[in-house]
């Protein structure tokens, strides 16, 4: 299972986890955030999901933030990221500053130039894997969701599957479920950057 390391594997059982998903416009990071939030709501956790809008989203990078907690969430925005996931280099550079030293960083190893951070880091060719497995690089966001859950168990697998089924277009459901399964099957310890 996903107990690759103490930090990543423990995120799912923490009472309060702040997650930031970053990428460039069109990579589907907003949808990724919404699906993660829906899955957490299905797990009966408290969730707040926010995102970047407008000029920022149309520029080089966009973000979706998800706070998952066991109690009511007061302040709705991120005060620091326990988990940062980025699919583009620009997003990585822009959002890395908000990552906690004790946090976890997952990035696309083809897109992002390796950063120097104290956080526990995982580098996976997420977009390339999506292209190989589904023939569509656009399914990288759903594959990444699978990878996040494999890494952290932030939401339960059945909830993730139901959330994906609810939120993606019917026509591409099979393709996206395959991408999700591929993400879930990743072995985090193989991708850890030491």
């Amino acid at each position, binding site marked *: 299972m996903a107990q690759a390391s103490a930090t990543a594997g423990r995120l799912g059982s923490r009472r309060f986890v702040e997650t930031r998903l970053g990428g460039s416009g069109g990579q589907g990071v907003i949808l990724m955030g919404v699906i993660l939030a829906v899955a957490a*709501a299905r797990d009966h956790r408290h969730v707040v999901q926010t995102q970047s809008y407008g000029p920022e989203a149309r520029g080089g990078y966009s973000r979706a933030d998800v706070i998952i907690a066991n109690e009511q969430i007061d302040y709705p925005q991120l005060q620091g990221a326990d988990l940062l996931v980025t699919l583009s280099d620009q997003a990585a550079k822009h959002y890395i500053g908000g990552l906690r030293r004790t946090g976890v960083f997952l990035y696309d190893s083809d897109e992002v130039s390796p950063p120097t951070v104290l956080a526990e880091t995982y580098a996976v060719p997420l977009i390339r894997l999506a292209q190989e497995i589904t023939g569509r690089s656009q399914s990288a966001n759903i594959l990444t969701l699978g990878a996040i859950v494999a890494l952290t168990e932030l939401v339960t697998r059945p909830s993730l599957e139901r959330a994906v089924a609810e939120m993606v277009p019917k026509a591409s459901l099979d393709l996206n479920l395959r991408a999700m399964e591929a993400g879930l099957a990743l072995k985090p310890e193989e991708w850890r950057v030491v």
Partner: protein
Amino acid sequence: MELWYTHLLREKLDQDSLLVQGNRASALGALDAGVRFFAGYPITPSSEIMETMARELPKVGGVFLQMEDEIASICACIGGSLTGEISMTATSGPGFSLMQEAIGYAIMAEAPLVIVNVMRVGPSTGRPTAPSQGDVMQARWGTHGDHPAIVLAASNVVDMYRLTMAAVRFAQRFRTPVTLLADEVVGHMRESFSAEKAGRYRLSSGDFDFTENYSRPDLVREVHPPHQLGAFRHPHVTGLVHDETGFPTNDPQKSAEFLRELHDKVAHHRDELCLYDVKNEGRGRVCIVAYGSCARSARAAMDLAQHEGIPVEVLHLYTLFPLPVEILQRVARRVEFMLIPELNLGQYAREVRKMAEQWTTVISMGKIDGTLITPRELVDRVSDLVGKYENV
């Protein structure tokens, strides 16, 4: 028999988990409160309210109109209201400015309707995607003339649902426009909450329950009877000062009486209209008075400060106008500082100061960079105040 939260219910993922966007929750609250007429013009960050109404209203036999602008939108809503339908529109600052003249008309004609203003940074087109609370005094005094105002403020997604319902109830009961203020963050965020609990507020100001009919003592003698188009009485509607026939009057006594009654129907029911919640009551030397997004910062700051050994009281206001005078003065008498965080340069702090400065020091903490005030910023300000006090 439909459940009271029938529209909300469709959003349910399963037995009790919901994840709804703030703007959508406002539209669902309106539908569940019986709104069947919506006219609007899309504007960020409020457009999802309109989009939801466009999709849902026809399914329940309601009427949705996309108008050519915000002036036409609110005028259509006044028309809808005069036919007896509960009417609503939604906008943001620039649209709210255009609506002001007609809001005055609705007050004068006593046409109940709900206006949701999801605030963004202004003035003018400002920053469409950045949150603000810059329209607070516009919601109070935006239209000309001496007039009453009922203004509510939402701080989270479930507020968007139930305060929209409250706005509908208040509008119908007091026969006047009611403004619900939200901001970009509250409007656009998605948040989980329980459907069954969504209709109930357990507040310091008293429980507010939508699950039963909102039945209160009759206001027949205080609120003028509705216009009945097509019926025999009062077929005439005007923005001019009018008498009981609905036709204009210049009689000084009748004129003064009429305007006084418009005020009194709101002012005499502050107890019912003013919704608020007090946390850590009587436990700190500082009380943070907050509304909207800032109330969430305040609640988080309360916990953070507690953790750092500084007890802080929080007064969370859901009703901004009529001004909740009684609770503001009660808090003012027991604390040394009232700290008012706002996403403007102290619009509401000035109102609080008028009520409270004879008992306490009122401090405005305004932020206009289009980001929320963080709990850390608030706690630092509180420590600063408490520290200063100790050094005196």
